[in-house]
């Protein structure tokens, strides 16, 4: 019995070991063989959906041979991404069988959630490449024509005429016409909530084939049309006029475009967009045959992908590559970095409707209490600078060099004393003009936790008691809109700085509400300045008004800018020709037609 039990135990051990080893071997073999020589993809037009899994029945033995070769002969038999060995896999190596040239791969954390060309906001940014807007912003922040050769505006600012370039063709061979522009603008106005202003204000539109132009007539003066038209992607009328509900129109592609590339495939499950060269593009030919946008839900993984060479650069709309990851990439020696001062910024907004924040001297004191250099060091890791009192960052058009904000707790205390804020009861906390201790509530979202803590410390140093209140985005909006806060930290985006009367006015004008705006300045001087800006398109006048606005910010401090940051874009040294604009960063046509692979 004992012997039998011993033998049984041994059998169990040996048998179990054999079985487990075999199972592991089979699993390893299968996981490496099957993808090693996958057959080419189906034509995307024939794909019904992203669930269309097809098992290639041919080439299994090819794959097996490939795998064995790789294992024993040392040939590289890696995944289908990096190389092709078998004939069956040769046709599969590039996403589109008929494209030539290199593939430019871009990592982004701005994932597409839905294959709705019009409905998905991130997709709307990426499709600037295939369906460029009429206008664009150049590197200096000037609005210039993109598909428009030129434009003019009537004296009363109600009529805008855009002259289309003559050499634009859709990717299906049709010529781009002024009718397409008219159609696109009206379409957005009718079908999308964010362009509803078009529907409300556009009186008429006329097309002229003679001079290849389209004229929009508005029912009131509108001076920002050129800016707005830098954000609406052009649509082919002959395709979209048949689509009734564009917001709900879902398709994985291909989409007809008129840029240097067209959108060939949206693959949410593979997490990528594929753009192919537009065969009818007459402009400067891009070098890369294909552009792939790869979505990463995790920036750490995107960093690893960059380091590994799986992608060539990183892009995030209105955002920088994380500063903490820059050093990692620098150490590899494979990357260069494009640095541009962001036209958006982080600032401290004050509830100007209540005391003591309505007191300009109190605001002045707060501004002196903040250690801007420390904020720049801790929040941007050195990729930033101390802001000016004029609020507007230097990268913006018509920037005025106002005085730099200064950190001086002594001056802060002095100002507070002069303004009548003192600690009469000796408890270390200053009292307001009502005699009560000043207790500041700093409302923050979780992403500004560190900034909030630093501000808390700075204010306590000058005798102001403060506490942090953290809220999620929706609660923050509710509290902000009901003016149920003292101070709050907020970030302006590039578009946010340009909206309304530009230069950040959209955040402060009390007549204007929206998700992330403060709408807290009711000063008639400020409101009149906004109206003056909105009433003119004359560059000289705009220049003067911009300067006036920055002077207003510097003098009155309706908000205190905390730091100006740089937008940092890492790119593989094998590529050069990057071009960055203040609105969309490196994601613009100039980048894609100029960037090329070079010997590092």
């Amino acid at each position, binding site marked *: *019995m004992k012997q*039998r*039990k011993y033998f*049984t*135990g041994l059998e*169990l051990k040996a048998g179990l070991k054999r079985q487990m080893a075999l199972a592991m071997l089979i699993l390893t073999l299968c*996981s*490496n063989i*099957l*993808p090693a020589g*996958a057959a*080419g*993809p189906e034509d995307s037009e024939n794909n019904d*959906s*992203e*669930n269309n*899994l*097809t*098992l*290639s029945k041919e080439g299994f033995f090819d794959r097996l041979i490939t795998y064995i070769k790789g294992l024993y002969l040392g040939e590289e038999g890696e*995944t*289908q*991404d990096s190389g092709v060995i078998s004939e069956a896999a040769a046709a*599969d190596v590039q*996403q589109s069988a008929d494209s030539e040239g290199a593939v430019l791969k871009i990592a982004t954390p701005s*994932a597409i*959630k*839905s294959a*709705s060309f019009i*409905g998905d*906001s991130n997709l709307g940014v990426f499709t600037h490449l295939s369906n460029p807007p009429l206008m664009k912003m150049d590197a200096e922040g000037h609005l210039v024509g993109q598909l428009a050769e030129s434009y003019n505006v009537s004296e009363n600012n109600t009529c805008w005429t855009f002259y289309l370039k003559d050499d634009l063709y859709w990717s299906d061979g049709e010529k781009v016409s002024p009718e397409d522009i008219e159609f696109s603008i009206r379409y957005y106005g009718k079908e999308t*909530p964010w362009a*509803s*202003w078009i529907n409300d204000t556009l009186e008429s539109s006329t097309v002229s084939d003679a001079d290849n132009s389209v004229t929009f007539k508005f029912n009131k003066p509108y001076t920002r049309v050129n800016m707005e038209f830098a954000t609406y992607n052009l649509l082919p009328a002959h395709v979209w006029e048949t689509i009734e509900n564009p917001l*709900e129109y879902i398709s994985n592609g291909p989409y007809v475009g008129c840029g240097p590339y067209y959108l060939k495939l949206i693959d*949410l*499950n*593979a*997490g*990528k967009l594929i753009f192919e060269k537009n065969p009818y593009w007459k402009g400067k030919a891009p070098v890369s045959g294909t552009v792939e946008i790869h*979505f990463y*839900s*995790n920036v750490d*993984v995107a960093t*690893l*992908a960059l380091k*590994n060479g*799986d992608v060539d650069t990183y892009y995030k709309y209105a955002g920088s590559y994380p500063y903490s990851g820059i050093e990692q990439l620098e150490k590899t020696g494979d990357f260069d970095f494009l640095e541009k001062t962001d036209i958006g910024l982080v600032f401290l907004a004050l509830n100007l409707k209540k005391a003591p924040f309505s007191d300009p001297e109190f605001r002045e004191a707060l501004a002196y209490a903040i250690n801007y250099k420390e904020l720049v060091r801790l929040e941007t890791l050195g990729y930033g600078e101390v802001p000016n009192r004029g609020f507007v960052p230097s990268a913006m058009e018509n920037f005025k060099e106002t005085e730099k904000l200064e950190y001086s707790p002594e001056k802060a205390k002095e100002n507070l004393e002069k303004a009548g804020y003192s600690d009469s009861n000796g408890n270390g906390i200053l009292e307001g003009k009502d005699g009560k201790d000043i207790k500041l509530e700093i409302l923050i979202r979780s992403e500004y936790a560190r900034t909030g803590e630093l501000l808390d410390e700075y204010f306590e140093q000058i005798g102001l008691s403060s506490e942090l209140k953290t809220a*999620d*985005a*929706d*609660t923050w*909006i*509710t509290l902000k809109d009901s003016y149920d806060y003292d101070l709050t930290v907020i970030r302006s*985006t590039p578009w*946010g700085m340009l*909206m309304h009367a530009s230069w950040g006015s959209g955040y402060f004008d009390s007549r204007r509400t*929206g*998700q*992330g705006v403060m709408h807290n300045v009711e000063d008639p001087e400020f409101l009149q300045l906004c109206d003056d800006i909105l009433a003119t398109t004359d560059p000289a006048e705009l220049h003067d008004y911009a300067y006036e606005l920055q002077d207003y910010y510097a003098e009155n401090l309706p908000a205190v800018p905390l730091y100006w940051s740089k937008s940092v874009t890492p790119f593989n040294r094998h590529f050069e020709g990057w071009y960055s604009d203040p609105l969309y960063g490196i994601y613009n046509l100039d980048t894609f037609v100029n960037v090329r692979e070079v010997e590092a």
Partner: protein
Amino acid sequence: MSGIARKVTRYFASFMLIAVINFTLPRLMPGDPIKNLIGEDVYISEKMMEELRLELGLNMPLSEQFASYLSDLLHLDLGHSYHLHAPVAEILLNKMEWTLLFVGISVVIGSLLGGFLGALAGWKPKKKVSRLTSFAFVVISCIPPYFLALLTLYLFAFKLGLFPSKGFYDTPEIGSVLHHLFLPTCVMSVFSASRNFLVMRGSVIQEKEQLYALYARAKGLHDTGILFRHIIKNASLPIITLLALDFGFLFSGALFIEIVFSLNGMGLLIYDAIMGKDYPLLQGAFLVIAFTALLANMLADLLYALIDPRVRRPA
């Protein structure tokens, strides 16, 4: 039969209660779905906001919205997603297929692996191999899933280059899918196995002390027989409960795994719906999860009755 009928009635009543909570809960969250839909930098007039509210049915009183929701539910219509611009049922089906693929397989592998190894470890707890596996699984169960997933990805995808780093596939082929899902499935299986291992091990240790095990040994049955013919049946009851729970929450996805591996699954879908206040999508997703949880529990009850005669015996 009356016992089963009572259970079914109970589950149905639970489902109805869940439907009510499902409707109420998203609406208790702070935030306006319209403002979330529009975005931060966009300015639209109040008139336009009202039109949107009207279009989405959000201007109706709550009672009317609830009646409409129930009526849609009875027609198996889960509504239309505000952000994804597609019918909720379609979106959920698509995501569920993928989530089922990697989470479902992980749950099964985790249960089998954890149960099997746990049984062996519980049977001979003093052996070196058993101690080592116990130690390994304890360590794994203590590691945050996010960290383990990142570590695995770093090692196998980036350092060794054996597996891809993101997505369900690169091209929609079975080979590519298997290759892409191997790592996330492994990570999830290992996590699931670690928990099942510990439960099974404890359960077997307890069961092997019972008299019937001693009797089986006295009869001359060999170890394998005692373990796999007698003990494992009784010891697996807690595993069945855990399995039912796992299956029940199958469609809630695995958010951390999906984030690390950039998988477009149910976890991220639900997370985005919460952040975007996409009521129809939230309601649909929670309903599906609740339904599968109820179904899984019902099946677990039935399985218990099958396996354990004490449950079948009348009180």
